[in-house]
C-alpha cells in the first residue's frame, strides 16, 4: 500500500532528526566551558561518562532507582500534584501502549499472541480503553491550560500543537473504528474474503445476525425473525467468531458508532471511512516525523535528564560535560511551568512585563541564544530576566524533568555578558554621566514620555518637596563609605552624593542618572540617616537607578552589544 511509504519516510525523518538533535547536545555553546572543548571532545567525554556510569555498580544502582521511580513511576510529578500525575500518566502510557499494541500490532502484538485480531477481545477493548485514557488526559491538559489564570503560567504554540496532534490522532482513530463497525461495505468485503460467498440468499442470515448483534447499518435493515438469527449465529460461529468480539467492548468507538448510525448512508456515500483511514494514518506519520522537532522529543530527552540528575548536580560533572548537560536540559524541558510556580522572583513579572523573568519562559530564550537565533533586542530582554534571577535554586529543586536550571542560568548569564549584554550596572558604564544626560534628553524630546512604562506610584525625584530642605551641607558626602574608599572621588564617582542632590534640586535628574556615584552607591543609607535636614538621599539614589532602568532598558543604546 502506498501509505506505507509515508510511514517509512516518517520513520527515516524521525531517525535522522533524532540523531541531529542528539548531535546538537555535543555542539551547542552553553557556558564558558564550551569555549574550551571541541564537539569531538565533548562527544568523547559524554561517551566516557555513560560508560563509567554503566560499569560502576553503585552508579548503576542509582540509574535503576531513577529509572523505576522517576522515569517509569514519574514520582516527581505525583509530588507536585496528583491530578497532573494522573493526566501525564494517562497520556504517556496510553500513547506508548497504543504505539506497541496497535500501531505496530503486526510487529509486536501478533507475534506475542498467535490468535491476535484487532477486532477481538481483549485487544479491541484494550485499544479503546487506551484511546479513552489518552483522550481524557488530553482534555484535562487542555482544560487546565485554558482555565489556568495564574499569570506566570503560559501556553505556547508548541504546547498546543502536541495536545492537538494527539487529540486529532485519537479522534480520527475512534471515528474510523466507529465507521468500520457500522459499515455494510466492509461486511460485504469480509464475507467475500472469509466466507468465499457472494450469494445473497446464503449470506442473508449472517447479515441479519450482524445487524442485530454487531450494529452494522444495512440499508434496508434485514429481517429479524428468530429462525434466521439462529441460522446467522451458526454462520457467525463458523466464519467470524474467531476474529470478532461484539463491538460493545469498543468503549471509545462503540458509543460513537451508535451516534452516527442514523447517518450511515450519507457517510458511506462521501466515503468517510477512507478519508478517516488516510487522516489517522497520515496524522500518525506526522507525529512520528515531528518527534525530534517538537515537544515530543522530551520522550527521549527527559528520561535521560532525570537519570543524569540522579547521578549528581552539574557541578560534579567534568568541565567538558557541562555544556552537553545544559544542551540536554534545553531539550528535556516540557514547558510544564512548575519552575515558574516556585520561582522566587515570579511576582516581579506583574510589574516588569518581561516573560523572561520566569524560568519556564527564560529557557526558550537561553536556547535561542545558544543556537545563535537571537537579535540584540531579544538578548537584552533575556539579560533583563536573567539578572533579576536571585539564584535561589528552587527551579532546579522542583524541575520534574531533572534539569539543573541553576547551572543553566549561570551559564547563560556568562554567555550574555560575553555577548555584550550585561546587567544595568554593566551597560551604564558605557558612557559618562554627561553623555547619558545627552541621550536621555534627546530621547525625552523624541518620545515625550509616550512609550515609557507608567510612572511609579512612589516618585521622589519629581517632587520638589524631597529636596527643598537640602542646604548642601555635604554631610551625606562626608559619611559616605564609597566616597571614603575612593582615592579620587571626582574622577571615579563623577560626583558626590551632595552634588547629586544639588542636581536634583535644580530638577536636572538626567544629568545625574548615569553618574558613577548613583550606580556605585552601596545603599547603606548612612547619608539618609545622617542628613540633618531629613532628605531621603539613599532613596533618591535608588530611584535614579530605577528611572534609568525604566527609561533605558529597551533603549537602542543599551540593547546594542558592547
Amino acid at each position: 500500500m502506498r501509505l506505507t511509504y509515508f510511514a517509512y519516510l516518517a520513520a527515516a525523518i524521525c531517525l535522522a532528526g533524532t540523531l541531529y538533535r542528539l548531535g546538537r547536545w555535543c555542539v551547542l555553546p552553553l557556558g564558558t566551558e564550551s569555549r574550551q572543548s571541541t564537539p569531538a571532545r565533548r562527544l568523547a567525554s559524554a561517551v566516557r561518562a555513560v560508560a563509567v556510569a554503566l560499569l560502576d555498580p553503585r552508579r548503576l544502582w542509582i540509574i535503576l532507582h531513577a529509572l523505576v521511580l522517576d522515569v517509569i513511576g514519574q514520582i516527581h510529578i505525583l509530588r507536585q500534584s496528583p491530578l497532573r500525575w494522573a493526566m501525564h500518566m494517562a497520556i504517556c502510557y496510553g500513547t506508548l501502549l497504543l504505539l506497541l499494541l496497535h500501531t505496530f500490532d503486526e510487529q509486536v502484538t501478533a507475534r506475542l499472541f498467535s490468535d491476535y485480531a484487532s477486532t477481538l477481545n481483549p485487544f479491541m477493548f484494550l485499544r479503546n480503553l487506551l484511546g479513552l485514557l489518552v483522550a481524557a488526559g488530553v482534555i484535562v491538559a487542555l482544560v487546565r491550560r485554558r482555565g489556568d489564570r495564574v499569570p506566570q503560567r503560559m501556553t505556547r504554540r508548541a504546547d498546543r500543537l502536541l495536545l492537538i496532534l494527539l487529540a486529532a490522532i485519537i479522534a480520527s482513530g475512534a471515528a474510523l473504528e466507529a465507521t468500520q463497525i457500522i459499515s455494510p461495505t466492509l461486511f460485504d468485503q469480509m464475507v467475500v474474503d472469509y466466507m468465499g460467498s457472494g450469494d445473497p440468499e446464503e449470506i442473508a442470515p449472517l447479515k441479519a445476525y450482524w445487524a442485530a448483534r454487531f450494529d452494522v447499518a444495512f440499508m434496508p435493515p434485514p429481517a429479524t425473525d428468530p429462525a434466521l438469527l439462529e441460522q446467522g449465529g451458526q454462520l457467525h460461529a463458523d466464519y467470524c467468531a474467531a476474529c470478532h468480539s461484539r463491538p460493545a467492548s469498543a468503549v471509545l468507538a462503540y458509543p460513537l458508532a451508535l451516534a452516527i448510525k442514523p447517518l450511515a448512508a450519507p457517510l458511506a456515500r462521501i466515503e468517510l471511512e477512507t478519508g478517516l483511514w488516510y487522516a489517522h494514518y497520515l496524522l500518525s506519520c506526522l507525529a512520528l516525523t515531528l518527534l525530534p522537532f517538537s515537544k515530543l522529543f522530551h520522550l527521549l530527552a527527559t528520561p535521560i535528564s532525570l537519570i543524569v540528575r540522579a547521578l549528581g548536580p552539574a557541578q560534579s560533572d567534568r568541565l567538558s560535560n557541562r555544556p552537553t548537560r545544559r544542551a540536554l536540559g534545553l531539550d528535556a524541558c516540557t514547558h510544564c511551568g512548575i519552575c515558574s510556580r516556585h520561582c522566587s522572583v515570579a511576582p516581579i513579572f506583574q510589574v516588569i512585563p518581561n516573560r523572561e523573568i520566569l524560568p519556564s519562559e527564560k529557557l526558550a530564550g537561553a536556547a535561542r541564544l545558544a543556537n545563535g537565533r537571537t537579535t540584540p533586542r531579544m538578548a537584552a530582554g533575556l539579560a533583563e530576566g536573567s539578572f533579576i534571577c536571585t539564584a535561589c535554586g528552587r527551579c532546579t529543586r522542583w524541575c520534574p524533568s531533572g534539569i539543573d536550571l541553576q547551572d543553566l542560568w549561570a551559564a547563560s548569564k556568562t554567555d550574555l555578558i560575553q555577548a555584550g549584554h550585561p546587567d544595568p550596572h554593566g551597560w551604564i558604564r558605557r558612557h559618562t554621566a554627561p553623555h547619558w544626560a545627552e541621550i536621555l534628553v534627546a530621547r525625552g524630546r523624541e518620545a515625550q514620555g509616550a512609550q515609557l512604562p507608567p510612572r511609579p506610584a512612589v516618585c521622589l525625584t519629581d517632587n520638589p518637596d524631597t529636596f527643598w530642605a537640602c542646604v548642601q551641607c555635604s554631610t551625606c558626602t562626608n559619611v559616605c563609605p564609597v566616597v571614603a574608599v575612593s582615592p579620587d572621588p571626582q574622577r571615579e564617582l563623577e560626583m558626590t552624593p551632595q552634588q547629586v542632590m544639588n542636581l536634583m534640586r535644580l530638577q536636572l535628574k538626567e544629568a545625574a542618572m548615569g553618574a558613577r556615584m548613583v550606580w556605585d552607591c552601596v545603599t547603606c543609607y548612612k547619608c539618609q540617616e545622617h542628613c540633618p535636614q531629613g532628605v531621603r538621599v539613599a532613596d533618591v539614589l535608588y530611584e535614579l537607578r530605577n528611572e534609568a532602568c525604566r527609561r533605558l532598558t529597551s533603549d537602542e543604546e543599551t540593547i546594542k552589544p558592547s
Partner: protein
Amino acid sequence: MARSRYHYFPGCKLTPFLPEYDRSTRAVLAALAVDLDDTELNCCGYPVRHNDFTAAMLCGTRVLAMAARKGLPLLTPCKCCYGNLKQADYWMRHNPALRHQINTMLGNEGLNWREDVVVRHLLTALDEDIGRDRLAARVRRPLMGLKVAAHYGCHALRPGDVTQFDNPLAPTIFERVVAVTGAQPVEWPLRLDCCGQPLWEKNNPLALALMRRKLADAHESGAQMMITACTYCQLQLDGVHREHPAPGEAWDDLPVVLVSQLLAVAFGLPGFEMEGVV
C-alpha cells in the same frame, strides 16, 4: 518554657549559598523552643530594588501578606531581607497610591496586605521576643575572654525610621546578644559601615576595598573574630574574602562567624565546634 512560632523567611541566598547559617539558626531556635513554619515564600524584593521600586515593594508585601494569612510573625536571618520587608511595610503604610496598586496585584491571588504583620530579624527576635535571660540560661560553654567585633549590616539598621531595628546612630542590640555568650564585644569605629557586598560583581575593586577596610579596622580594634548576622555580609566577609585573600596582612586570618554559630557553640549544641578559637 512556652513555645513560640514564626513564619521562617530564609531568603533566596541562604539555602544554596550559606546552608550553615540555615542549619545553625534552626538549631539555636530549636534549643530555645521556637518553632518555624517553612511555607515557601517569594524573594523579599531587595535585589530587584536596583531595577524597580514597585517590583521590590510587591515582592516584600507579598511575603507580609502570606504571613498575615498564616497569622504568624516573620523571622529572617538576613538583614537585607529584613530591611526590604520593613521598607515594604513602611511604604504600604505611608503611600495610599502604592497600597492600592500592590493590593490590586495581590488580590489576583486572593492575598491582601495587613498592617499588623510583625517582622523580626533573628537578632530582634532573640533580644526582644525570646529575651536575653532565656538565652543566658541556655549557655553551656561560655566563651569567656573571646573578643569579638559585631558587624551590624546596613539594611536592618538604616533608615532607622523605616527599619525600627535599634538606635540607628548608636545601636547596641548586636553587642547585647553576643555578650550573653560570655564573649566580649569590642568597640570599633567602622562597625556600622557597609561590607561591600552590594557592589560585588558590579564594581569589585570598590567592594573589596570596603570589605578590607572593615576587616582591618576590626583587627586593629583588638577583635579575635568578626560576628555577622546577615547572609550577604557573611558571603562577602567570609566567602568573597577567602576567595580574594590579602596574604601578609595581619587581618587576613580574622575569622568571620555567624551569630547563630557563635550561639550554637555557646549553647554546646552537638555538631557545632569552633576549632582553634574557643
